[in-house]
């Protein structure tokens, strides 16, 4: 009886290992697939980002500025740049404290 139960236990463990191994392989395949998909998505994202970087570069923006907004875009004076504080009940404007010479 003891022998039979030992043998059944070994058999069960072998079968269980086989099942686990199979499911692990399936999961590994899925991970590999997802990683491959991610890689192609990453390549797409990087290419689009590169395009965005190029189109939004200072060089290009100045070019667009000259073409479309010649008189509309003006350089901001630091004195006109304020800091907005959200005080829950109201918004508060404060001077930019970059330089505070007395």
């Amino acid at each position, binding site marked *: 009886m003891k022998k039979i139960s030992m*043998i059944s236990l070994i058999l069960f463990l072998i079968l269980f290992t086989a099942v686990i191994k199979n499911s692990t392989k399936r999961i590994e395949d899925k*991970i590999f697939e997802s990683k491959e998909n991610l890689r192609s998505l990453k390549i797409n994202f990087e*290419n689009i980002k*590169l395009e965005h970087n190029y189109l939004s570069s200072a*060089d290009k923006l100045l070019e667009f500025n000259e073409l479309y907004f010649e008189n509309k875009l003006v*350089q901001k004076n630091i004195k006109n740049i304020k800091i907005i504080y959200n005080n829950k009940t109201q918004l508060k404007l404060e001077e*930019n404290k970059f330089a*505070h010479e007395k």
Partner: protein
Amino acid sequence: MKSKDSRIIIENQQSDFLYQKSKSNLNITFNRISFIFFVFFIIFFIYSIHLIHLGSRKINIEAIDDIVKIDKLYRADIVDRNQEYLVKTINSIDIGISPTKIIDEKKLLINLRFIFPNKDFSEVKKRIKKGKFFYFEKRISEENYEKLMQLGDKSIEPIENLIRIYPQKNLFSHILGQIDNDNNGISGLEKSLDGDLKNTQDPIILTVDKDIQFLIRDELDKFNKIFKTKGSGAILMNVTNGEILSLVSLPDFDPNKREKINDLNYINRVTKGVYEFGSVFKTFTLAAAFDEKIIEPKTEFLDLPKSLTCAGFPIREYDNDIPSNLTAEQILIRSGNIGSVRIGQKLGEEKLRLFLSKVGVLEKANFDIEEVGKPIKFNWGKCPLATASFGHGITTTLFQLAKAYSIIVNGGYDIDPSLIKRSLDIKRKKILDEEVSKKILPILRKIVSTKEGTASLANVNGYEIGGKTGTAQKSTKGGYSKSKINSFVSVFPISSPKFVLAVMLDEPKTNENYVYHYRDGSNLKYKGTPYNTAGWTTVEVTGKIIEKIGPILATKYSEIN
């Protein structure tokens, strides 16, 4: 009964294993069930060994990725502090043709003409006749690649390549450098980070800001034309942690073109160019004296002569109207040569040398790129001490000047200037007395904000700029030429220093038509450059640069500390 008993005994004997020693071998007898069990057991045993073997093998997907990338001559991208691309590696496909594999030449040419209608096919025909492999088209589009693959012609061979793209063109050429055709870095960060770039998966993040770099380069380029300079350089550094937000040297080059640059004028003027910068050194003399507690800003120097002679060579004041009695503070504000010599003499050779060494001006600097200049060895002595006190005869790089000023104004903490973003929790080492910053900062401010100062054209409203000008004649073999190096090292905001901006112009000339707008609130304009000094050239450039980059620094980087 006897016969019945004997029958039972026979049955019992049949269900038992019987081991008998034969003449030659062990004789094993099984019953049927045991035999089947044994076969199954063997099969399971073999399979379980196989399973254990399979289970022990680890499939490392990441390792596979690495191999793929290394096989493809992988090289990591480089981005700025805002994750904007400065260098990007992209895959490209070149199409080659193997004439020996062509089955039907006419059909192939018709198909290719259909896909590439604008290509000159007479040349292609000639090459096919030669019978050797040749590149039909380089860097083809994905669309054309698919069309070519659909032809299914074995003579068409796609070859995968890597291209290094520098989307900012010239903007970071002196920082990034170039690579050769074998994908090895030959200058700049491409060279110094070659190993990392080949082995790192993630992009390398730099401390520079693309927009600030653009604005500084744009202004420098504009003023190179106005003052007809040979070249120029600028470096913007965070005084607290040494992060370099911008490093521009002109003329520069487009790394996308992969040209071989032999012209010495394309030297990196910020890190490689070693120059005499003149009066900007007077700040070091005064700071050293404050550090040694030898003098105070209000210490008076009386009866200062207009000229001195040392080893037969005269030392004169640049401005003859300079008073004979000056305080230490006034000596720096009015950029007095004789006064600086007196401070230097009071300090002594050893202490000045030690101070300059501490702030990293005298020795070759350690930096992220290999293009770093070595200051010319300075032979100390009585007269050299006098000349070094006002920045004559002593050399360094603009990069080292920016670092030294940063240490002087940040409370005396040593910094390690860097182009590569690192963790912020770096232990700070104090190398100067804290009082040095407190004493020197108001003086630097007065150089810009008062009429006596030499840098009033940089007094941009709202940024509290301070700094020191330097006008030096360029040294030649055995003497000095008439050409000049005009420099200005600015610090802002003075009440809580955050940035140092060092600008230099190499051989500027005066411009008769340039119109200066005074920044003293008078709204006065002045046409033409009266003197070829830093106060009328580099200071004007610095003012214009800070006017442009100031709003970005004040908003985006106001919490930088």
